[in-house]
Structures are given as structure tokens and as C-alpha cells.
């Protein structure tokens, strides 16, 4: 059984059809690249999976459970975490605090215990802090541990959102154009971050424009165009296929 199954998924915004009919499977351990021209529905696809939007039609199953239309926080608790194209972070906090906040799902003690500073709470907090420090170091942000998040250079901010996504203990990670607006060095940095996440066994769906990186990182590619899936398979084959070339370059 696939980790994630989309069947017949459609998404309409008024008269605009963002996703026309999507059938796809994602299997554990895969790194699936989602590519396509602008407006093809890539981000909408992630939005619908992560719970930000509810699909107009169709079903989405995760580990056998129907998740279409669930609240995003419930979906995150199940193990699906996402990043955002605009790279949303907590601008009011330092790096370490950002990652600590992202460890929310690791909390087991309840609010009363937290209020009264119970022993299990204190221990758990210490553990979370350790985990956060560890993650910060893993993503090369150790020097910025106590720096305010908004002051970070662009590439490091992306690394931060990667770090936060990992802190949320994803089984399936949805990355929305993590390399957008990156120069060569930053691209290397963030691609390296992604590799580290892959090494931890997280299944990934990666929406990207940067084809080179997609080829490097992904072992499968799905191509979308006008909300439809027009190709799905091994990277080299897909990119050579006629439909895909037409979609990107237009028909003569």
C-alpha cells in the first residue's frame, strides 16, 4: 500500500480549475519531484494534501486513512509536514526558539504540568531543547543559534524552515519551491539540507522549478500542466517525453 494515495482529486476556486483530476501514489522512501509550468497546480497540490485547502472532489489517503479536508494541524500530527514558498518562519524569535517552537508535536506533557513546572515537563523541555540544538547544528545554523530570525541571510532562512520542518517529525515532507530565488551557493546549501532530510528516511514531495536540482535529488518525477498529471516516472524518461516538452515549450 502506498504511503499517500490521491484518487480523482480536483480543486476549483470559483471558475478556476487548479487541479483537474489527479491520481497519484507516493511510496515510503521516495523522493518525488513535482514540476510543471507556472500555474499548473503544483502548490495547490501541496495545499490540498497538507490540509490548507479542501479538495473539491476526490479522496486523499495517507497510510490508509482518509485525510482530505482534515485540519492542517491534524494532518501534521499524522506525519505530513510542509514548507512554504514564501518561506514562513517566526520573525519574532531567535533561531533556536524557532526550532523549539517547531518541536510542538514532540510534546507529551499537558498544559497543567507545564504551568506547574512538573518534573516530567522540565525533563521534556530539556529534551526538546537538546533536540532543537542538534537540529540547528545539523543544518549548519549553529553560528546563528541566538540570532533573530529576520536578520538571517536568505539562504540560511531557507535552511531554518527546513530545520523546523524536520523538527516536526515528518514521515512525509512537502517542500514548496525551497530553491526559489537562491544563487548557486545557496542552492548547494539548501540541496544539502534536503539530502540530510532524505538520509533520515523521510519521504519527500518536492515542488521545484530548478530542473537540475530535481534531477539530482529525486528518484521519480511527476509533471503537472493545467492541473493534470501529464507524466509520472523516472526522471530521465519523463523529461524526454513529448508531452512534457510540449507543455514547457508549447506546441509548434
Amino acid at each position: 500500500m502506498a504511503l499517500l494515495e490521491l484518487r480523482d482529486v480536483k480543486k476549483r476556486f470559483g471558475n478556476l480549475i487548479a487541479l483537474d483530476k489527479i491520481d497519484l501514489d507516493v511510496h515510503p522512501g521516495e523522493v518525488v519531484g513535482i514540476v510543471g509550468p507556472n500555474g499548473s497546480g503544483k502548490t495547490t497540490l501541496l495545499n490540498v494534501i497538507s490540509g490548507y485547502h479542501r479538495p473539491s472532489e476526490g479522496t486523499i489517503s495517507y497510510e490508509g486513512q482518509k485525510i482530505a479536508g482534515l485540519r492542517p494541524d491534524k494532518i501534521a500530527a499524522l506525519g505530513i509536514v510542509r514548507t512554504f514558498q514564501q518561506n514562513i518562519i517566526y520573525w519574532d524569535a531567535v533561531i533556536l526558539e524557532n526550532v523549539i517552537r517547531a518541536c510542538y508535536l514532540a510534546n507529551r506533557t499537558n498544559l497543567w504540568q507545564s504551568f506547574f513546572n512538573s518534573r516530567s515537563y522540565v525533563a521534556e523541555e530539556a529534551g526538546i531543547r537538546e533536540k532543537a540544538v542538534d537540529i540547528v547544528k545539523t543544518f549548519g545554523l549553529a553560528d546563528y543559534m541566538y540570532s533573530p530570525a529576520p536578520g538571517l541571510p536568505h539562504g540560511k532562512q531557507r535552511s531554518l524552515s527546513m530545520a523546523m520542518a524536520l523538527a516536526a517529525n515528518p514521515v512525509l515532507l512537502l517542500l514548496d519551491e525551497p530553491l526559489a530565488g537562491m544563487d548557486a551557493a545557496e542552492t548547494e546549501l539548501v540541496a544539502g539540507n534536503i539530502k540530510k532530510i532524505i538520509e533520515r528516511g523521510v519521504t519527500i514531495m518536492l515542488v521545484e522549478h530548478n530542473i537540475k536540482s530535481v534531477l539530482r535529488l529525486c528518484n521519480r518525477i511527476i509533471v503537472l500542466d493545467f492541473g493534470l498529471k501529464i507524466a509520472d516516472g523516472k526522471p530521465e524518461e519523463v523529461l524526454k517525453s513529448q508531452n512534457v516538452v510540449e507543455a514547457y515549450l508549447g506546441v509548434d
Partner: protein
Amino acid sequence: MKFIKPKLKLTTILVIVLVVIAALFPLLVKDRFTLSILVEAGVMCLLALGFAAVLRSGQLSLGQAAFAAIGGYMAAIMATKISAPFWLALLGGGIASAVIAFLLGIVILRIGGLCFSIATLALGEIAVIVFRNWDQVTQGFTGIAVNAPLIRIGGTVIDFTNTIIPYYYIVLLFIVAAALIFWRINQSRLGRISRSVAVSPILSEHLGMYLTKYRVLMFVLAAFITGVGGAFYVYYGAWIGPTLFSGTLSISLLIMCVIGGLWSPVAGPIIGAVIYTYLGTLMQMRLEGLRPLVFGLLVIVLVWILPNGLVALQYKFPIWFKGLYRKLARTG
């Protein structure tokens, strides 16, 4: 990490000193008028603390006065219709407000934002209409008169009629309790979650935080404390009517918190409430007709020069504070 311990120590000492001063104050200053301003300010502190908590969870509640009124009416009705004792009436007031907040919150806080603010505004208006017209229960415009609280310590009954000192101590007690609660919340996980939800709700949601739950939590807690404050105020003035908690009160809470400073969950609202009430009353007396104009201009100027409130002053003069920290670090 080096500065955290001394800062906590400094703050704790400061707070204890302030509380002791506040506790001793009525024994040194017998002037009834000053004490009455302080009691009023005290009630405002409670309301401001609640308002600030909701604000720091990301929502602007423009109807806090309604909760104070709901609490006040509940307490008055309990006191007059079922002869409830003081503490019980206060508790009843708090619970009534909390329940209304809960019902409104679970519905509106799912969307939050501007819709929520306007809904609280609407609630305020609805509350006033209901109080004015539901004669059987609220006596409409006449309002309800309430007897002084009957509290015994040891064998003696405390005198509430000839002096307001007991009121002063009760409100001080409430403020300390509320301040402790909100401070502790802020330190704990709930504070962190509340901040997350306020700063980036979408991100927080996708990191697993159920937004509505935490917003409602703060909203209900704030309503409870506001209800208790309102109920207390009714006993203090011995009367409640539809005009006691005006709509402008809700808006003033925002001014109080911004003047005091929003970076702090406790110090900001308290400082802001005290200054607002004190300045307001002072201006009312000295300037009379000029008061609204001057007060408004003053607030504008304050926001210009201290956009983050008075609490932010400690960051504007870091050298001074760092010196203090260093001194304390040396003494351990």
C-alpha cells in the same frame, strides 16, 4: 545565557519590593481620593491583563467591557436574588463571563482576525441592549444596588462602608494572583504556543498546533478574570447599571496596553492601566473640558516616541541595565 539568571533575580527582587510597597501604601497614605484612584486603576489592571493575554495570542478583543458587565450583573443578581456571599458572587461573575466567552470563542475564533474583533464589538453592543431592556433580570436603566460585602476574619466583620482600604487589598490580591498566572503562562509552554499562534498562525497550524483551541483558552481565561474584576467593581460602587462599563472602556484597554508595552504580558498592562487611569483622572480634574483633546494628543505623541511602550525603555537604555546585571552577576 549569562544574563538570564541575574535578570530573573533582579526582576524578582523588584517585583517583591513593589508588592510590599503596594501593600504598605494605604497605611502611609490615608488620602481617600488617591486610594480610590488606585482601586479604579486596580480594576483596570485586571481588565488590561486579560486584554493583553488575548492580544498576545493574536486577537484583538474589543468587547472586554461586555465581559466585565456580564460578570458584574451576574454577581449583582446572585447577591440580591440568592443572597450569595461575596466570594461566591465574584466566582459566579467570572464563570458567567467565561461561559459566554467560550460560546462566542469556539465559533468566531476559528476565523479570528478582523472578523473576531468586529464580532466582539457586536457583542459589546448586544450586551448593552440586553442590559438596558431585559427589565425582569437586569432592572433596565435603574440597575441593581448591591450591599457591601460581608467578610469576617476571626470574629470581626470587616468594615467596607467607612473606608475603602479593604477594597484596595482585595483588588491588590487579585492583581497579584492574575499577574502570577499570566506570568507563569508566559514562561510555560502555553506562552510559547500562544506566541507562535499569534505571530504565524498558518505556520503554527502546519506544525501541529490547533489554533482555535489556544485562542479560545486565552480568551476564556481573560474573560474569567475580567468578569471577576467587573463583579468586584460592582461591589465597590455598590451598583451596576447599563452605563457602568462603557464601550469606550474596551477600546481604552488597547491604549493602556500599548502605552505600557506589549512585549511584557504583565508589567506592560499593569503600568499602562495605572498610568492611564491616573493621568486620565488627573486631567479630568485639572483640565476638565480640555481633557479629551489633550489626552488624545498625549497618547498619539506617546505612540510616536515609544511605539513599544514604556516597558521597552529597558531596551532603550541597555547600558544602564547591563551594568545592573553585571553587578548582580558578580554577587552571584
